[in-house]
């Protein structure tokens, strides 16, 4: 039983440091001399670093690791890997190699680590990549993730902040996995809800990204710890505003009930503190507000593209069985940055 306790504290992307704290530090770091081949660095707080090595090839580099958010080690491995691989897809790249990042208590059963890494390696193979090494550290708590390298066409990189006014926003996975896992941690989540959350978190964003390749994507990011509203805030880049269609938000139905029971994460409240003042909720229920601030582990892609392209992309995704929806529209910059309405 003690193993279990160590194994599952506030895990997944709910364990991320708040965006507010982070941006203050990042802004103060010394800057390296300008290199024109670095197409994406953390100036724009994008999902991954992109470095051009020739006219038609850029390296996409990212890493992600976190503590477990589910009890089962094999499932945790799959989720952590799907989450780490996602950043490559959010940039428009394809996965090439991955390295394991492991923190594991010395006195814990190594079979557990074996199951975690087995889940992770399965996802890397599914992504079409090669697991090529890794690094492990003895630590008091379990943490696992991947460092991933992918490649992309430098002319077709999806930045997170190049959306245009009038674009629609397509979200490819349901929200609410943070709330459901939190409820699960205190024994309040139904089996059905947990299963849906796990299926969603282990699903690779590869399939949504493959569909994206057929469209003129203006901006793309994956929705993770900073919540839908947090990631939209980054996408707007102080340059645009956005309307969110609350009636079209896809979410795990039980998340609403658990939010009404206040089974909420610290990270969700941090997200509210960070972006809440830029958001106006027009007759939106408390539970929906919480779903929009909910930190997602291995969340879906959020894609900005023109109206007719978005509708076509949505029907193609729906045909493939994805729970995608059009969740909002980018507008010219207004007084209110994010307006949520229409629940």
């Amino acid at each position, binding site marked *: 039983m003690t193993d279990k306790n160590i194994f599952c504290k506030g895990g997944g992307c709910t364990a991320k440091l708040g965006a507010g704290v982070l941006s203050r530090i990042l*802004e103060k770091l010394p800057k390296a001399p300008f290199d024109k081949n670095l197409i994406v660095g953390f100036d724009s707080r994008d999902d991954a670093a992109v470095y051009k090595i020739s006219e038609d090839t850029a390296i996409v580099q990212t890493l992600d690791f976190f503590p477990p958010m589910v009890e089962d080690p094999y499932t945790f491995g799959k989720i952590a890997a799907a989450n780490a691989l996602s950043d490559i897809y959010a940039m428009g790249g394809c996965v090439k190699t991955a390295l394991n990042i492991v923190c594991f208590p010395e006195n814990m059963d190594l079979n557990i680590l074996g199951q975690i890494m087995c889940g992770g390696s399965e996802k890397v193979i599914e992504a079409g990549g090669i697991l090529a090494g890794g690094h492990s550290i003895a630590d008091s708590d379990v943490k696992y993730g991947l460092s991933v390298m992918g490649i992309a066409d430098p002319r077709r990189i999806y930045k997170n902040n190049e959306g245009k006014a009038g674009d629609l926003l397509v979200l490819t996975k349901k929200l609410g996995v943070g709330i459901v896992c939190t409820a699960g941690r205190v024994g309040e989540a139904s089996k059905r809800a947990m299963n849906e959350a796990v299926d969603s978190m282990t699903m690779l964003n590869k399939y949504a990204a493959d569909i994206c390749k057929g469209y003129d994507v203006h901006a793309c990011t994956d929705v993770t710890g900073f919540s839908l509203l947090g990631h939209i805030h980054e996408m707007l880049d102080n340059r645009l505003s956005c309307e969110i269609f609350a009636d079209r938000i896809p979410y795990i139905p039980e998340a609403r009930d658990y939010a009404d029971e206040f089974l909420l994460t610290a990270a969700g409240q941090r997200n509210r503190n960070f972006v809440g003042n830029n958001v106006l909720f027009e007759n939106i229920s408390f539970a929906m507000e919480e779903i929009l601030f909910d930190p997602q582990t291995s969340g879906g892609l959020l894609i900005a593209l023109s109206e007719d392209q978005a509708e076509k992309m949505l029907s193609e995704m729906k045909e493939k069985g994805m729970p995608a929806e059009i969740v909002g529209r980018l507008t010219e910059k207004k007084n209110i940055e994010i307006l949520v309405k229409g629940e």
Partner: protein
Amino acid sequence: MIKVNAMGDPCPIPVVKTKNAIKELGGSGQVETLVDNEIAVQNLTKMANQKGYKVASEKLGDNRYKVVMTIGEAAAEEKKDDICVPDMRGNKLVVISSSHMGSGDDELGAVLMKAFIFALTQQDELPSAIVFYNGGAKLTCENSPTLEDIRSLEAQGVEIMTCGTCLDHYGLSDKLMVGSVTNMYAIVEKMMGAGLIIRP
């Protein structure tokens, strides 16, 4: 009163423990919850507000906070009072437009402002928000003598807002240490919606 110790518990455990205590109370009364971080205070406050419980919180020391909820008749009675006298609690807005209080001697004014903000943290009734603009914007930034007190107010649920134009003007845009950046539209909206505006 039931006392709940949620020190060291990650969210949502403090909320779950507090809800169980409220159930145990089985009616009216008070539940006092001890937590070790501001976010837990905010999550508890959010629950109390949604449920219509009266809630007050206090910073007891480093990483030590107390949240007291009043449930049932005690809270209901106070609601009844609202019908006779509009209760503007939680709807008071403090506006700080300068880094010092009053005019005459600025050095004295700075001391007075520090004392004002400290005294504010000690009140039973707190304002819903504090808006900082013009010279006041310096108080929410690096090197402000009152940062700790403003953070404590924020931890107790007071919204801290600083005018973005003002931060730009003083070159403090990357020095904001507490609360969030706001704009004139939001400032006007806060002022129009306030039951009482306090301007030291």
